[in-house]
């Protein structure tokens, strides 16, 4: 049971790390889509099929496509490739911070006296999930709906904007 988990984890983590370090933007975005798929697989392993499919649908489908669009829209910034010297020190700091956070979290996880539950896989049917959503969490469902529409409209307004002013003047 655990070995499947470990393999999944390692795969996902690997793709994520590589995506983050690639020079070429397109490659990293595509690799990232693989990461999302890995996470969806983890959900499946955990037994939460609905979440897995939601993950697949949203992240792999929508978000990566949106990112791709964004990358294409901002294509001609060629100079991104040559990493300026500052990036070198920036990477070191970032790695240090990341490592520190990882270390702390792993220490916390290992030390925490978490009760290990029995190996039973609690299953939740989509009907149950729907009842939950429409029952106890109806208010939050509505809130999320509103959030999504507002975000959508806001994104359109921001991105569309008016005719491009001269570069350099304040927005």
């Amino acid at each position, binding site marked *: 049971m655990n070995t499947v988990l470990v393999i999944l984890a390692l795969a996902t983590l690997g793709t994520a790390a590589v995506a983050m370090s690639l020079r070429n933007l397109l490659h990293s975005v595509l690799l990232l889509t693989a990461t999302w798929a890995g996470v969806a697989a983890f959900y499946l392993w955990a037994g939460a099929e609905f979440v897995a499919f939601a993950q697949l649908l949203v992240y792999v489908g929508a978000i990566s496509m949106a990112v791709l669009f964004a990358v294409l829209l901002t294509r001609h910034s060629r100079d991104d490739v040559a990493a300026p010297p500052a990036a070198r020190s920036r990477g070191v700091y970032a790695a240090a911070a990341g490592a520190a956070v990882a270390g702390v979290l792993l220490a916390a996880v290992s*030390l925490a006296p978490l009760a290990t539950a029995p190996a039973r896989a609690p299953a939740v049917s989509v009907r149950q999930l729907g009842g939950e959503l429409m029952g106890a969490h109806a208010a939050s469902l509505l809130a999320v709906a509103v959030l999504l529409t507002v975000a959508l409209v806001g994104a359109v307004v921001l991105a569309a904007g008016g005719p491009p002013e001269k570069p350099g003047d304040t927005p």
Partner: protein
Amino acid sequence: MPPSLETLWLVPALPLLAASLGALTPRGGRRFSAGVAIAAMAGALLLSCLALRAALLDPSAHLVHNFRWFDLGNGAVELGWLLDPLSALMCVMVSLVGLLIFIFSLGYMCEDENFTRFFCFMSLFAAAMLGVVIANSLLLLFISWELVGLASYLLIGFWFHKPAAAAAAKKAFITTRIGDLGLLLGLVWLYDSTGSLLLYDGGNGVLEAGVLGNLGTMALAGGLAVPTAISLLIFCGAAGKSGQFPLHVWLPDAMEGPTPVSALIHAATMVAAGVFLIARVFPLISYDQALAADPLHALTVVAAIGAVTALLGAAIATAQSDLKRVLAFSTISQLGYMMLALGVGSWVAAIFHLLTHAFFKALLFLAAGSVIHAAHHEQDIRRLGGLGRTMRTTYATFAVGMMALSGVPFLFSGFWSKEAVLHAASEWAVSQLPLYAGLVGVVLTAFYMTRLLCEVFWGPARSPEAAHARENTGVITVPLVILAIGSVGLGFLGTPAWPWLESALTGRPVAPRSLLEGGGLMALSIVLVAAGLGAGWALYGRKVRVSADAKDPFSAAAPRLFGFLGARMRLDELYAATLGRLNTLGAALADFMDRWVWGGAVGFLALLGEFTGSVNSEVDESGLNAGFNSASERIRGAGRAYSGAQSGDAQGYLRTVAVAFVVLALLVLLGGGR
């Protein structure tokens, strides 16, 4: 309550009504105001005669009517009026003389444009004088007394556009006011000691034996018995009003007023008010005679002042060149006689002399008025002369008045009243000095009256005005004739053979004295009168001066004395030098104190305030503010430093969050994780 006592208050009220009506009539209402004034005086005269008749029924009784004026504390202030022979006689005298003078003024003031105002003030004066006469309460007497002073102020300053008249009015009011202050203090002391100011109030009036008794027993105030001190204070008021020695300076200047005013006020009535007051409160003033312990008796002072004034007035009168000034000083001298008579203890002689003097002095003043009126206001006797021929009635009446004043024996009233005064002086136990002063006075009086007669009526007319002076109309000469008859007739009321007046006034039957008993003194006075007339005739009658600037025989004989007397013994200059300067000094001191001492203190405080203010702001600036500013600077520096953290680098923020998270997590894990 006999009817006349009931209506006695009308006697002053009628002229007062006339005065108020006169005040309201416009300048044009000449006939109306004169008519009302004369009618009021006639009414007052009629009521006075009725009152006299009622009073003479029982001469010793003091019929009194008191009423409550306003309530004060537990008691009340009461006023009242009094009917007794003295007040009735005075009422008759004042209203009769007043009436005659009002009629005289019709002619004398006819061309003056303030005619209505003149009669208004004259009625006011008459009302006030009658108020003094009938008052039973010293407070009512004081009120009328001051109103008499006001009327004299208004009438002296009647021609107020003349600066001399305005100054004379002020001088008169101020001088009499000084005397009145003494009277006020006397009243207040009396009020405080006895609790009432009523003269006669059924037993506890001020002049009644009971109250006088406990007054006498009071502790000596500053070495003087209380009644003596009070009497002296009251005498101050009387001296002020009657022009006695220290306070006589205003009377000669008061001649600036129109002649009827001089006649009524400064001859007959007002100046007599002082004598009347002393006669009225005579029981109080003479009470201290009985006090053995009293070192100084009030009446001695009165007699002394009276004698001095008599001599002084007569002496100065001999050297005056102004017709009215001579008569003014003569009045001062005669008032001295009255005070002398009071001083020596015989108030009846004083009142008798007052009554006769009122008539012949009013007569002399009106005659002088007639002369001045005819000679177009020429008053200097050196420029008059020869009027005997052209103004026969005035000359005749003036001669009657002169002889009455000089005391020509037997026929004229002046002789009898002066003889009564001298007789009383001779019987005075304390000293014979007043008698000698009186006798010298008799000579001087006869001398200056003859001088006056000769200068004005005999010899050539010495100026154009004197030349074409003509006799005046009837309205002026008729009062002269009536007064002349009075000057003669009145004498017979009080002759030693038939002392009607004394019995009427005192209420006790008086045994007639035979002529012989006092004969020596009478003979002496007749000789002295003759001597005076002779000297006068010798110097002025034999060869009357021919021109206005001819040298006066008296000044030829004794130029320095004549000059000194002519300048009124330089008393005015003396007063100006002493009191006048003291006054201005006091004013300067007060003003100096205000500007520099108190003003300076306030200024110093203001300066102190400013100084502390500046010190305060200095300390503020350098001390507090500086400290405060540097502190705020430091805070601003720190602020700027922190703001550097807001660099805009989003990733910087994230990094900081991450580091912070790590630190916190470590704390939780290593620290209180349990």
